[in-house]
């Protein structure tokens, strides 16, 4: 059951080293909601908005990064990157101010069979959605994490502490970890570890071109793959039909049937 509630901001701070670099600015938002919503699943999201003005008008969807609950109440954590009007407004909000949150929404990642060690592939801010999955699987996963440049890599220390199998970092410009895209890294990783070629599960979240490349790779190798999709959203609850993606079974709503889809279902256009 999702809820529409008010939540107080308890933290809203930059999370990358030099957050003034253009295009790389990312923040951590911690909220303390008035009412404790239902516990979310990894890969689910919340819509967050303010009611201070009609511009921006719509709430924005954010993957749940972390969720805690205690006797005093629950806490919701999000990671977000400055992208447009909505996130620019959000970053200006201070501790103690309130936002409106709607959630948890969407389907979340399906859990793997116990005998599998899946590979999680995150690009940029996509880490926000895959991190809770890694936590839920107690770090018994391989994690490939890529970004355009060093400054866009978030939560590296947390990842190092969490991931029990391989953790491979990469950047497009080679400023940290291996040079190249995560798909290059994925290819090398599976070539170097042929015993893993029998593995049958990938999870991925990141920019659309990356998801498309991961999906194509998975299809070529015959590996099952789940990807978390993103589209502009209005309602978040499946009513407006604004956030659809094309699938082999017709248009599906990212907010309701997604955001997580089996990659073989998506029709890339």
């Amino acid at each position, binding site marked *: *059951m*999702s*809820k*529409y509630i008010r939540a107080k901001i308890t933290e809203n701070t930059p999370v990358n080293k030099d957050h003034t670099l253009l295009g790389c600015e990312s923040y951590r938002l911690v909220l303390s909601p008035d009412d404790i919503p239902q516990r979310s699943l990894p890969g689910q999201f919340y819509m967050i*908005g303010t*009611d201070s003005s*009609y*511009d*921006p*008008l*719509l*709430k924005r969807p954010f993957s749940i990064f972390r969720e805690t609950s205690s006797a005093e109440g629950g806490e919701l954590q999000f990671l977000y990157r400055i992208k447009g*009007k909505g996130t620019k407004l959000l970053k200006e909000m201070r501790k103690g101010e309130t936002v*409106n949150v*709607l959630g948890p929404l969407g389907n979340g990642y399906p859990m793997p069979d116990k005998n599998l060690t899946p590979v999680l592939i995150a690009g940029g801010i996509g880490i926000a959605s895959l991190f809770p999955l890694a936590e839920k699987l107690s770090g018994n996963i391989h994690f490939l994490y890529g970004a355009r440049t060093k400054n866009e890599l978030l939560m590296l220390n947390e990842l190092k502490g969490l991931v029990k199998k391989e953790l491979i970092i990469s950047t497009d410009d080679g400023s940290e970890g291996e040079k190249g895209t995560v798909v290059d890294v994925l290819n090398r990783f599976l070539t170097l570890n042929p015993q893993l070629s029998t593995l049958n599960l990938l999870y991925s979240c990141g920019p659309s071109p990356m998801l498309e490349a991961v999906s194509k790779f998975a299809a070529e190798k015959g590996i099952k793959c789940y990807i978390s999709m993103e*589209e*502009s*959203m*209005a*309602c*978040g*609850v*499946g*009513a*407006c*039909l*604004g*956030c*659809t*993606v*094309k699938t082999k079974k*017709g*248009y599906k709503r990212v907010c309701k049937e997604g955001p997580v889809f089996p990659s073989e279902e998506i029709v890339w*256009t």
Partner: protein
Amino acid sequence: MDLTVNIRKLKLKNPVMTASGTFGYGEEYSEFVDLSKLGAIVVKGLSLKPMEGNPSPRIYETPCGMLNAIGLQNIGVKEFLKTKLPYIRKFDTKLIANIFGNTIHEYVKLSRILDDAGVDGIELNVSCPNIKKGGIFFGTDKKMLQKLLSTVRANVRNAVLITKLSPNVSYIQEFAKIAEECGSDAVSLINTIPGMAIDIKTRRPRIANITGGLSGPAIKPIAVRMVYETFRAVKIPVIGMGGIMNSSDAIEFMLAGAAAVAVGTANFVNPSATIDIIKDIESFMAENNITDVKELRGAVKI
């Protein structure tokens, strides 16, 4: 305090309904809204056969509003009757089915099916800006509208017949008059206003359909003006909509002449917007010693 309003023979417990296409089939909002508290639910536009809708991106936010070109994606009337209608019937509210067709024959067929199924109202969408055939084609041509409405009218016996008008005409009141003359029980207005946005980096339209319908607070003054003009031109009830975000907006529409109002884009911003608006209209009435909400209808002082 009397909040009831009549759309001809249809009595609503309060003047607040949902705008078609913004509330799904009701079910989508049932976690946030007690559907029994609504004046009426107007469901997503229905066609005879299921429709796939337009490619993505389908929506784009603009200052104080949004463009959409969903393309009337819907499950088709057959599936609606099987699964959605029985669900809504569990609630104590009125059900208005919004319909559209490519031909007069399709509108007639749909109206008859829904009338026989016992819906409380049928809203004819003759004003969707996002499909090639039908829709706005009927709503912007007087002769076509006349032919469509008189044919449908002759085929609907029980349901209240509402014509949803396009703002994309020079004088909306002339189309309202045609609706009245052809036996429409009410008119609803406005549908979205055709608009466009372009990404200057890629030089591509922001939505795949190129153009879309603009909704939200950005269009409210246009809608209020059109409700005002229509109210003065016809005797049948006017259902007002277009950017209603709160009770003040709803009251403004009633003062301009709306017998009832529909809440659209606001549902996306606040899923319980409809309930908040009903509650706040009551508070406004209490504070201003208004005992009957009908007192507000067309009460603007000129």
